[in-house]
């Protein structure tokens, strides 16, 4: 049976969107709410090198991450925070490791919650250990262990489960390396959407048996990979206009988790969530300037604009001069959230929102796309074709192209020749694509399976 598809936006106009506020707030245990009128800071820290040598060491490691984060939260007076553990391979591959690590962290948070009344949450992001070229994405041992790991985490005290699934990656990688926008659209918009439906129907079902929210799934393997490869202004590996198009496409794909029942807060990393929030009104996590520990982006302030959870990105677990990284980076996101919450409490939130947006709106075409007024337009294009994953992804890309071209023509956004040429080239390819899903898929299936040895059509029921 088909799933529910969005054909309307959650908001009437972009100005209704604001950080700390979601149309459909979410509650979690330990008193935490998302999108309920305040912004929640988040921290995530990667287990140290060598901690994979045994389950006991890994559990201790995760426990100490939780302890250091919670300790700092109380030390600097944070009212609330979310701890996220992005699984390393071993925590998903051995589901009992994932379960035991979750239990250890949940115990720490519960203790702090009971002692200080601090609101906290625990997000477990399972790793997508499936390998398309090794047996495909469905029904393999890898696939089954993910389901089991989700269950272990949900059972052992996670307040929500997130993921960054890799459906469509084989084709997307081919496309991004060659500047082939059709492959990018097929990889993220079609294959990614198909796999999301498979993955999230199951994840939602598992979570429903426990006191645990199925949160959502960001397009790390697409939108974020491409942003990372595009790099800074002087980067020469991928055009920033192309990265903007890929991100617009990824919003149509990441929406599928919500259509399967995910509630948010949607996971950060792909930066597509402003668009998704405009469509479905669920709370979102975002990252930007406080993710500098992990990567450089060119829209560090802008992404605060409508965030409900403000996050860093997995950082080494080690000592900084200011203390262990779980505390250091929670302090960074915590103070930013405090600023946003002060703005909300004093009636200045919309001004702060617009200041955040304006600092980066024309720094880069990716910021132009994500500025909430423009993101809203792209969201509108998606729901216009909401019932068809391919057509809505294509519409998102075309609207993105329009938004960037208008800003360029108005001389607000400057573009290099390379950025402009690639935008024009990609746009004319997109315009020439068929208006029927089946025809598009047929055409792609004639070409990509023979060109991309790791692409396994069976994994998508094709």
């Amino acid at each position: 049976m088909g799933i529910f598809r969005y054909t309307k936006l959650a908001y009437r106009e972009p100005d209704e969107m604001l950080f700390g506020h979601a149309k459909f707030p979410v509650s979690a245990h330990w008193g935490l709410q998302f999108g309920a009128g305040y912004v929640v800071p988040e921290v995530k820290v990667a287990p140290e090198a060598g901690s994979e040598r045994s389950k006991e060491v890994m559990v201790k490691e995760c426990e100490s991450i939780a302890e250091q984060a919670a300790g700092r939260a109380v030390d600097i007076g944070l009212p609330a925070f979310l701890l996220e553990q992005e699984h390393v391979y071993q925590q998903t591959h051995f589901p009992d490791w994932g379960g035991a690590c979750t239990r250890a962290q949940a115990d720490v948070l519960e203790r702090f919650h009971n002692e200080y009344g601090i609101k906290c949450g625990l997000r477990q992001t399972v790793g997508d250990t499936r390998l398309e070229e090794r047996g495909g994405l469905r029904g393999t041992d890898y696939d089954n262990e993910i389901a089991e790991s989700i269950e272990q985490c949900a059972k052992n005290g996670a307040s929500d489960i997130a993921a960054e699934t890799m459906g469509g990656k084989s084709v997307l990688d081919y496309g991004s390396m060659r500047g082939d926008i059709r492959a990018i659209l097929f990889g993220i918009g079609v294959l990614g959407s198909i796999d999301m439906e498979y993955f999230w129907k199951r994840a939602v079902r598992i979570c429903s048996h426990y006191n645990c929210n199925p949160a959502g799934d960001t397009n790390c393997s697409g939108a974020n990979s491409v942003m990372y490869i595009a790099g800074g202004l002087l980067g020469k590996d991928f055009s920033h206009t192309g990265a903007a198009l890929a991100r617009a496409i990824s919003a149509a794909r990441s929406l599928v988790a919500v259509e399967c029942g995910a509630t948010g807060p949607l996971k950060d990393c792909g930066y597509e969530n402003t668009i998704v929030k405009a469509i479905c009104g669920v709370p979102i996590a975002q990252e930007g300037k406080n993710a500098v520990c992990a990567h450089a982006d060119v829209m560090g302030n802008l992404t605060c604009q409508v965030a409900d959870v403000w996050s860093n990105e997995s950082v080494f677990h080690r000592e900084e001069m200011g203390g262990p990284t779980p505390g250091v980076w929670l302090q960074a996101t915590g103070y930013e959230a405090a600023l946003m919450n002060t703005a909300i409490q004093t009636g200045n939130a919309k001004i702060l929102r617009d200041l955040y947006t304006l600092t980066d709106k024309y720094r880069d075409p990716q910021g132009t796309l994500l500025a909430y007024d423009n993101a809203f337009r792209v969201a509108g294009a998606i729901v216009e074709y909401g019932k068809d994953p391919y057509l809505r992804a294509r519409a998102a890309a075309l609207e993105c192209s329009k938004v960037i071209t208008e800003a360029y023509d108005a001389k607000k956004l400057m573009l290099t020749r390379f950025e402009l040429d690639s935008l024009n080239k990609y746009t004319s390819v997109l315009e020439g694509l068929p208006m029927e899903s089946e025809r598009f898929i047929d055409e792609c299936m004639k070409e990509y399976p023979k060109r991309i040895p790791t692409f396994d059509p069976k994994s998508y029921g094709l």
Partner: protein
Amino acid sequence: MTLDWESRENTDFVYRRYNVIVEGPAIKPEDDKDVKKNMPPKEPFRELALAVIHGDSDRAREATKTALASTPPLDVIEKGLSKGMDAVSALYAKGAYFLPDVMLSADAMMVGMNMADAKLGKAREKKGTVVSFVAEGDPHDIGKNLVVMFLRSNGYEVVDLGRDVPNADVVSAVKKAKPVMLTGTALMTTTMTNFHHVSDMLKKEGISLPIFGCGGGAVKRDFVESYDMGVYGVKAFHATKLADAAVAGKTWKDMRKEYPKIVGEFVGEYADRL
């Protein structure tokens, strides 16, 4: 939006798009002065090189077909196609070409090279063999795929073991292929430790590779140099220069010391070893 920029000038205090500011005039790649210097002047070689430079696989197929009618396959590769790829590397290194351009050129190069190889009928002598893998438990393979592409299009035979490769498989591939170097890629704190294990296992087998290069997110030079044979690889396109050095007899110890010299550019990660 309730706020907006009133005029463009104001933004200069907030951000500057340096890529636009420093952009030079548009020139055809074949008019670049470094490319000009090394372009084969005569046909059919010039057309072969141009097909590669423009990343045009169809043109490369035609040019190779024409060239093979009158020219030995080895010359088609070495005096034509490879010259084109050299130009592409130079353009990429100076920022005139972007990665997708390089990939399309590599595709065109491979089209021509496969046709020439087929005509040759016997295995062509490669510059050397390299084994490439992504560490066990790690799915991050973009960097590794780039390394493989750069090496292949520069005349190396590459045994590509893929991603999430068990350490034992790496060791047996090395024993079988006897490569001039092994490239490992890992991006995570808890998978990069496999490099150390592989190094230990190779040592136990009495194998000493001239170089064991690695790169990636969590991986830092200190870590890679904490075990024998480890050489920290920074950019994927460095792999060809490193392989050339390995073929020329440089050991992993030399490579650690001379990395910036070998790759021929400033490398921040090796700033203390200029």
